[in-house]
């Protein structure tokens, strides 16, 4: 139960409970304003009935020809609002917009290989691994799971413009990119 609404510039004053979390990066103004000035329909927040921000998603659209796709750049939910299905809803909204407004072939996102919960969630939503990116994330210390801490999966989900599912493949986990 939360209000799903567009991300507004003034939300930058209110996102501390989300961004103080160690996994969430705070970028410069230009970053957020660029997203809002270019892809406002791929950016939204979830707020509690009392107005507190719970999480947000920022996305863009990029790529040439059949690589034209929606991309999830940032997806973050405040610690106290996890396990409520917020990420799922915001991703669904981004997919809808990427499909209907941008006519994209697919949506993709990056996730830490070690983040099993997230990977499983995205798989449940129809995403599959396209490739594995070596050392994509900076390490936050010695990871308990070695390589997996720093490597990322690039996961994709085809949209209605790709009925033949040409934008995904079965053996993505084996496709390693340095």
């Amino acid at each position: 139960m939360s209000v799903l609404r567009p991300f507004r510039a003034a939300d930058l004053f209110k996102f501390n409970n989300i961004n103080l979390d160690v996994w969430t990066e705070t970028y410069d103004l230009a970053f957020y304003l660029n997203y809002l000035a270019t892809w406002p329909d791929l950016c939204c927040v979830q707020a509690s009935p009392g107005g507190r921000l719970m999480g947000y998603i920022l996305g863009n659209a990029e790529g040439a020809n059949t690589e034209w796709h929606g991309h999830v750049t940032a997806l973050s939910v405040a610690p106290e609002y996890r396990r409520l299905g917020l990420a799922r809803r915001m991703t669904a909204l981004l997919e809808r917009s990427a499909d209907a407004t941008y006519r994209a072939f697919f949506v993709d996102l990056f996730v830490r290989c070690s983040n099993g919960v997230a990977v499983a969630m995205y798989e449940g939503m129809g995403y599959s691994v396209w490739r594995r990116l070596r050392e994509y994330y900076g390490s936050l210390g010695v990871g308990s799971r070695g390589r997996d801490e720093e490597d990322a999966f690039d996961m994709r989900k085809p949209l209605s413009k790709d009925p033949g599912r040409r934008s995904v493949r079965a053996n993505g986990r084996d496709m390693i990119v340095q």
Partner: protein
Amino acid sequence: MERQIRPIYEALDTGSNKSALVACNKLLKKHPKNELIKALKALALVRSQKVEESLVLCDEVLAGKPTNDAVLTALMHVLRGLGRHKDLVTMFEEAYKQQPANEELAAQTFFANVRVLNWKAAQQIATRMHKQFQEDRYIYWTVISAILQANDPMTAPDMRSLLYKLAHRLVTSSPTPSYVNADRFHLHLSILRELELFDEARTLLESDIGKSICTASLACNELRRDIWRLQGLFEDEGKKAELRITEQNDRNWLEFLSVLDAACSSTSAVQDPDESTKAESSSRMRKAQELFTMVAAHDGHKDRSALLALLELEKRARLHGISNDKNRMVDLMKQYFEEIGDKACCFEDLKPYLTLDVEDGERWVSFLRSLMPSFADSNDLRRLINSHKLLRQNLALDDLTMSAESERASLYTKQYLEGLKLGASLPMTELQPADDLAILAGNVFVHLWKLSSDEKYLCNAVALLEFALTKSKQSFQTRLMLIRIYRLLGAPSLALEHYRVMQIKQVQHDTLSHFILSRSSTFSLAASGDLTFATECLEASQIYLSNAQDTGEYIVRAFTGEKYSQIPEFIIFEDRLDNSLQRDIIKIEHLRMRLAHEAITSDIIDMELIELKFIYDRLHHDNRDSEILADYQPRVIQKFSEQTLLFGKSEGSGWLRTFLKVYIRAFQQGSDLDDTVEEKLLIGDRPKQTSPQNKLALKDRLRQRNDEELTELTPEELALVDYARALADWLEPYHDHARPPPGVVLAEAAKQAELKTGHPLKGVEIPPKSGNANALLFPKKDEEAPPVTEAPAIVIQFFDDMKTRFDDAQSASSPSLALHVAALMQEAFLLFVVETLRFKAPSVVKVNKLGALVQQFKPIRVNALAVLREVSFSLLKRSEQDATAEQRKKFVDACSPLIALNIDHDFVLGAAKKLSDSRKKVTEGVGKGMSRMCTSYS
């Protein structure tokens, strides 16, 4: 030529301004008239802080009315660097006039006006652009310019509706319909909403394309919902929402609210509903209830919307007197807890429903009490935590005795330690599921401190929270609490340490720096040469420069990308950051540190005066985030964030205005720059006056005493303000008498400028030399000096009075208050220095016959310095006592209940040592700084 110029661009791009300058000079020898090289040189100069030289060059190129694209771009950057946005507009307008067919120039002229928010001119240019270039988007540029002009608070109401009507006419006359893209559609709808053209709006919205846009665009759907509500179509909207909930599985809370509003609409509309209306309402509510019950059964544990909607429905039914089951509210709350109690947000969800009557309250509390604590898994733990938070929220004052609170602290701590076992195997980057129990205990300890004023409870909070951080390194909630508590305890370096770990950056500086910078001059060691806090102030202020540089760019980008829905939002954002209250509070704190650190000269006084005057008329926005602090205090007492405010007071705009007045007055008196001089010497645009124009002159406004503003001050700050006012009132006539006349000041400034740049100062006419070398000293020889009056008692007494306060504050074990008094005494002395600087020159005193006045300064000064020395000595003595084993033992003893619960003794001792070291550092640093200041001013 291009080949020769490329290295200049490269140097500028990489920030090598020096080599850019060298390259420019070399090329200028060969091509002395080339305006591009000159423009680039001006850019290199302004980036090397050589403002005066840059100005001369820039004006030279501008005078030639350039139209070349590269020259214009270079000058654009120069003018922005100089803050001359208005001149930028003129430059592009001139160029566009010469080349009216140049679309790029037209757009630049439009954007230059956008940057200065000159919507009227922007609108006219866009209109011309549409005529000339026949592009649809220019119609929309005209439209949004008209709307933004209408929305400007300075626009009269009838003008506003006129502008909206114009916008409407333009949109409807556009050759392509607005629905070709969502942002144009959004703009169109916002016009229709403003003009209440609801029929037209509905036609658009109910068309197939309108519907499909609203499905895909949250922003358009928001407007649609708004329009429906404004028309009172609650039932219709409710039906739509019901369909979205049942058929599309939409769980947006806004849809549930629409159903709720539809169910209550008929009751809300009538003041005294008769029986039939009531019956109708009941039936509607019943229907909504059926819907929510069905959805709740379907969603179960997965989604909480329907369960919460049931609660909200019952709350509204009770409000309208049509609830028919007196048990229902608590039953629903119980149900909610049972389903959602294992989610962290359960407490926050239920909070709005916790105000219950006695009977309900008892049932609710006994339900929560009947729950058996379980630590079987983290779900059970969260239930336990939620039940504690919910129970605590409803505690009455009678339940909040020292002994009851002590028991709670001990219970929460025990359960916290028990709960830690559940997270034992989590990686260090994860939060512990038991964290909130430690935070709850921290809340209780702070309340115990409030009740008893006994610092030992804060020591317990510190020890427990520090321990919790070793288990849950990323818990920012714990850190924020510690920051507040360490400041109360007079351990600013520990507070800063925690603050830095959180890696606050970018826009967070605006919203969170108050945690560490609020009244930070109290703890600043600037006088002793340690600029830690001063640097922190400067770093936190960077974001305001980024805002000035970047946000405007993205407003322009939103225009080119036609994202009209974003433009008003960006403008609001830019304004909120530009006129941020925190920004100027930091400015004042930094100024106070600066004066303690640097020698006070007329240069500093002049520069700070100009800057503070810019700030004074701003209409400030408070962006500070204090909601971020976890608060689990009962409803009947202060919130945690209020309880832990340093000195119990938060600085707001009243505090800021009061201190601005103090400093502007002191600097105005100390400065030779009066308004006429400043007008001539100042480069760049004057700030936008966002505050409604006050009819009184600044000088008179500065004298106004506003009691409401003063309530934001601590008693000690109030004493300083009264002292400063008395001092300024006393010395004003002598300053006014002795200040050289504007002509003389300007001539001197012109002379200095010419010495520096080799060019005369533009716009300043130097009066013919009278041959009187003493012109500066003989300004008003015809006027009698004002009679010398005695120093006001308040000024004479101030330092002794404050010393008494200081001695009283020294008895507290936290040095915070003593440091507060000491810092204000030091500040009072520095204000005295500012106010008497002019009269230091013997010639000024002699010429103006002010010897009798200056005579009076001496005893005040001597006494002040003597008192400050004593204060410095006490602080230094204290610093030795602070870091002793005895002090640490006191802390450890205070924490014996925690040690009894198995928190390691050595860990507590470590926390004690850190605290006493930090206190020693600050008392010693401030003491040394004061003594250093006394030496340099005696």
